[in-house]
């Protein structure tokens, strides 16, 4: 009986409440607490020891019960039975308590599996108005800082009165739900303002994936190898403990018997050692320098280089963060024999920029599902995809881009000479070209006279792209193209077209670390410019970390250069930039791709604000060319 009581004590201790057990998986609890905590492993060993002793004693009693009972006095037998019954019930109560703890642990704690990042979708950027939406969501009551700043913003357009408050609002207010009514009120006001401003508001749609800013494409851990118990079988011992207790209390041998299933699976979940994924991957693509929007097929081959079968291998390829998957899936699974391999095929949509594949995520599980080993595997061979914007020169009709430029595409000067625009008429001198003789005048008066035109000379132009963080905006939804992408596409086309017309063209960007390409001419310059627009960090596909900007490079531009600025005008700084450039004396034209939408009052307000910025700039004498989101650049360039 002594063995029984000692194991009871062990189990008793094991079932004392242990708040320290949940934190720090595997790590000993910190500082002073470690002195007062019996570690898991010790209790576990004591329990096993107790079980062995119990089996030995039980087996002994089973085989030699009659002899034992006859040897003991009758009183002792009665006492023994009473005590063993008491001890058993106590133990069963402890089992019930422990099974309650285990069940709670299972239901409360998530299963420890690695959720791979959503690599199918290209990292996206917020839609115009998402910041306002966040601000509204953060409003707690009407005295709130956020509330007041939005309210002031609305008042700029003459805030509509909220005297017609709905019953629901008054009811919500009455029960102290001011946060909700304040938000509703703001949104209703914004809707009213937007509609008064001529922007019809559509139904709400939730913020795009990019609304939370830059998307993380990591695994959540920087380690290259991570091993963890998933807890797949955690909670199965509840079945064993509960089965034993219920079976004894209700005297149902089949239930006691069934509890062995719980023990069996709990053991099964622990005996299989962790897998050792020794895998290598190889990646090939059909095209390393695709055109924008082209589909590139990717083939990923995973091979098992180890000498043990990988029973459950899950693979998620490291699709470049800025590219989206257009067909197939970059995920796959396999049971890999030693030397075996598995191929995963999918397609990605090419996009401007230089893109490197990230390490593939390989999750190897035991067949039991209890242990998961996570590895980030770099490919032995992995191509880099470089995609440059298509810079196809358009017919030289860029008439609306400069007040000084005419259909010839050249800048006219004040000097008389050859050209297309009339300058003056003078007497014929010998040697004047016959094409410039005014034949009408000759027919009337028989006098030869020569027409002079404004002399047309190739001009210098700078094509600039607004690539500040605030310009990285895209319409709601899985568009995968943002305003800077559109700007760069337009800039590349404008660059090529102006070069084709014989102008000297330079490139610049506005952002924290702007790019600058000195104005020049020629085929080599076109290639340089295209490469720069395609791969320069300054106009990259991902927004810069810093929200600042630097206009100093534009000081390098010649003073008479015409400036063509591509900007979505999604924030007030864009207006400040345009006015600064205009104040420098540059002849400025702003081409503005429009990423605004009208789903939800906040986004409608963003559209209204952008319109207001355009009006402000126009009244200050800046030429603005609006570029609708769905419109091809040819139509903008050709003049609508």
């Amino acid at each position, binding site marked *: 009986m002594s063995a029984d009581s000692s194991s009871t004590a062990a189990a008793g201790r094991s079932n004392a409440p242990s708040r320290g057990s949940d934190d720090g998986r595997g790590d000993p609890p910190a500082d002073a607490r470690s002195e007062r905590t019996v570690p898991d492993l010790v209790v576990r060993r004591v329990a096993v020891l107790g*079980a062995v002793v119990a089996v030995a004693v039980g087996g002994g009693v089973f085989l030699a019960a009659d002899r034992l009972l006859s040897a003991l006095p009758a009183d002792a037998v009665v006492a023994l039975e009473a005590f063993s019954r008491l001890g058993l019930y106590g133990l069963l109560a402890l089992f019930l308590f422990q099974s309650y703890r285990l069940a709670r642990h299972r239901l409360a704690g998530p299963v420890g599996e690695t959720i791979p990042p959503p690599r*199918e979708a290209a990292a996206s950027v917020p839609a115009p108005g998402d910041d306002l939406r966040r601000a509204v969501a953060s409003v707690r009551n009407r005295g709130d800082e956020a509330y007041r700043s939005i309210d002031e913003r609305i008042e700029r357009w003459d805030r509509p009165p909220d005297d017609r408050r709905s019953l629901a609002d008054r009811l919500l207010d009455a029960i102290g739900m001011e946060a909700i009514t304040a938000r509703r009120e703001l949104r209703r006001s914004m809707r009213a303002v937007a509609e008064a401003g001529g922007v019809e508001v559509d139904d709400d749609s939730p913020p795009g994936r990019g609304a939370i800013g830059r998307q993380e494409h990591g695994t959540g851990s920087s380690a290259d190898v991570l091993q963890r118990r998933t807890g797949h079988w955690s909670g199965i*011992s509840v079945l064993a403990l509960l089965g034993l207790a219920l079976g004894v209390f209700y005297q149902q041998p089949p239930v006691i018997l069934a509890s062995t299933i719980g023990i069996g699976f709990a053991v099964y979940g622990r005996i299989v050692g962790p897998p050792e994924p020794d895998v290598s991957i190889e990646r090939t693509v059909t095209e390393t320098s695709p055109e924008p929007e082209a589909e590139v097929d990717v083939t990923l081959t995973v091979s098992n280089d180890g000498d043990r079968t990988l029973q459950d291998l899950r693979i998620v390829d490291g699709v470049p963060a800025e590219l989206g998957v257009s067909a197939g899936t970059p995920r796959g699974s396999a049971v890999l024999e030693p030397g075996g391999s598995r191929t995963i095929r999918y397609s990605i949509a090419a996009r401007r920029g230089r893109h490197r594949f990230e390490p593939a995520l390989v999750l190897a599980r035991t067949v*039991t599902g209890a242990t998961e080993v996570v590895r980030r595997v770099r490919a032995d061979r992995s191509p880099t995809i470089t995609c440059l914007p298509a810079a196809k020169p358009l017919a030289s009709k860029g008439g609306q881009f400069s007040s000084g430029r005419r259909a010839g595409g050249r800048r006219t000067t004040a000097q008389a000479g050859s050209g297309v625009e009339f300058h003056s008429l003078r007497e014929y001198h010998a040697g004047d070209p016959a094409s410039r003789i005014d034949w009408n005048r000759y027919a009337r008066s028989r006098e030869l006279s020569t027409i002079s035109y404004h002399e047309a000379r190739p001009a210098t132009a700078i094509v600039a792209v607004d690539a500040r963080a605030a310009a990285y905006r895209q319409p709601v939804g899985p568009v995968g193209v943002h305003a800077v992408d559109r700007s760069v596409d337009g800039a590349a086309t404008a660059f090529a077209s102006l070069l084709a017309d014989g102008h000297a063209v330079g490139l610049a960007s506005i952002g924290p670390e702007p790019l600058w390409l000195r104005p020049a001419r020629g085929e080599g310059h076109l290639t340089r410019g295209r490469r720069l627009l395609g791969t320069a960090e300054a106009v990259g596909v991902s927004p810069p970390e810093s929200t600042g900007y630097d206009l100093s490079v534009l000081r390098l531009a010649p003073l008479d250069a015409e400036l063509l600025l591509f900007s979505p005008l999604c924030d007030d700084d864009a207006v400040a930039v345009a006015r600064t450039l205009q104040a420098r004396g540059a002849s400025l034209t702003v081409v503005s791709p429009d990423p605004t939408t009208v789903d939800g009052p906040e986004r409608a307000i963003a559209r209204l604000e952008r319109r207001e910025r355009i009006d402000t700039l126009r009244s200050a004498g800046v030429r603005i060319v609006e570029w609708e989101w769905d419109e091809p650049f040819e139509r903008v360039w050709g003049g609508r």
Partner: protein
Amino acid sequence: MSRPVVEPPDGSPAALSSLFAVCLAGIAWSLTVPYSTTGAGIATIGWLLAALALSVGDRRLLSTAACGLVLGVFVAAGDGARSAAVLVGVLASVLAWDLGNNAIGIGRQLGRDASTVGIELRHAGASLAVGACIVAIAYVPSMLVRGARPLVAVVFLLVAAGLIALAVGPDDSLSVRLPE
């Protein structure tokens, strides 16, 4: 300007394992029906919850459903179900829980577009084989030992079983904080 976009997995569980799990839950349910109305009622709720859990991919709901199924079988045992039926019913419930959890995990990690049949079959096969062995090990000796057994011996064996169940519990479930 819109492009075809492949959506990331939406977390819907892998199809094959889900199907197996619902079928296994059905087996557990069917074993309660001949013996107990109450048990069958509880198991029915368990079965429905299992199907619901696997359509929405919710582990907690699946665990609740498995509890319902096991409880249904236990109640059937109280109403006279034979050992074999109880063992198979509990095994089917546990396997439904296991395969369902695996389906949810695969759905979250790989999604339905990836081909996952191989690993699903491997996992299901291994669990089924182990479960069959456990049932055989539990059932066959219980058939051999018949007649009166000393109660004290049985008690010691039960104690041993319970302690082993404790010892094979999940990590860090046993560390004990001693009172001051």
